[in-house]
C-alpha cells in the first residue's frame, strides 16, 4: 500500500513527536507518545497501528535482564520511508510557527513532565 489511508490531526501529532525523537536520536514508547501528544490511549495506539501497517515506523522490545519483572516497553522509531513521508506531511499540513511552538511545548512535557 502507498502511505496511510487517512491523515488525522492525531496522526500529525504522533508523527511530530516521532520526528523530534528521531532528531534527538532516541526511540519513544507508546506512553511517551501519548503524554507528548496529550491524546487518548486508544487514539495513539490506533495511529501506531496504521503507521506500522504502512511501514512508516518499526517497533522493538526493550531488553530486560533476568531480574527485571513486569511488562516490557516497546520502542518505536521512524523508518527511512517514514522519515520522508512524515517530514512531507508535517511540511504540508502544519504551519512552521505552529510546529515550532508545539515542539517547544512538547519538549518541556517530555523532559520535565510539565503541563499547563
Amino acid at each position: 500500500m502507498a502511505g496511510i489511508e487517512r491523515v488525522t490531526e492525531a496522526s500529525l501529532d504522533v508523527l511530530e513527536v516521532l520526528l523530534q525523537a528521531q532528531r534527538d536520536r532516541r526511540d519513544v514508547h507508546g506512553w511517551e507518545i501519548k503524554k507528548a501528544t496529550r491524546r487518548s490511549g486508544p487514539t495513539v495506539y490506533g495511529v501506531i497501528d496504521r503507521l506500522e501497517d504502512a511501514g512508516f515506523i518499526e517497533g522493538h522490545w526493550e531488553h530486560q535482564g533476568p531480574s527485571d519483572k513486569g511488562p516490557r516497553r516497546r520502542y518505536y522509531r521512524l523508518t527511512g520511508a517514514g522519515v520522508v513521508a512524515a517530514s512531507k506531511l508535517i511540511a504540508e499540513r502544519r504551519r512552521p510557527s505552529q510546529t515550532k511552538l508545539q515542539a517547544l511545548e512538547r519538549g518541556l512535557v517530555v523532559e520535565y513532565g510539565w503541563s499547563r
Partner: protein
Amino acid sequence: MTAKDILLAVIIPLILAEFGPWCGWLAARLLPTAAKLRYADSQRAAVRLEEWSGDLSDIPGQLTKLTYASGQLLAGTAAAAQRKAKARRKVRGRDVDGLVTAQLSSTGVSSPGQLTIYTTQWCGFCQRLKIQLARLGIEICEVDIERDLAAADYVMSINDGKQTVPTVLLPDGTTLVNPSAAQVRAQLAAVPPGSPS
C-alpha cells in the same frame, strides 16, 4: 449537615480508600479483553497488551489506571462491533457503501464486461477508487485479498510478490495497479467490454 454532605465528606473517601487498590487490579484485568476485542490479529493483540500493561504501571493513580483501561476497553468494543458489522455486510455481498455489485470468492471475472478490483478493508485508495468508479457508473467486483488467499497470491504474482492494493483486473485481462478512475475508464474504452482480446 444534610445527608448529601455526609455522603460527600465521609462515604466517598471511604469507598475510594476501600476500592482504590481494587481499581488498579481491575484495570489490569480489563486490558486483555480490550486487546482481544480491538485486534482480530492475535499477535498484534499480544504486543499491544504488553505495551498497555507497561503504560498502566506508569500511571500512579488507581482510578486513573481504571480510566485508562476503560478507555481501551471502550475502543476495543467499538472496533469489535465495527468488524462484526463489516463482516455481516460482506456476507450479504454488499460493500460498506453499497457500491459493489457482487462479491467474488475466487479470482477471475464474474461476467464478461465486468472488472475486478482487489482490495483490503483498510485501504483508503481502494475506497476512493470504488467511490470514483461508482460515480462513473462502472460496475465492479470486489475481492478482499485478506479474506481470499488465492486472490492474494494472484495479486502477488502480478506485483513482484507484493500485495499491492488496489489492483484492478480488467475484462480484457490487463491489470492496473492503483489506477485513477479515469485510467480505468480509458482502458475500458480502449478495449470495449464484450470483446475480449
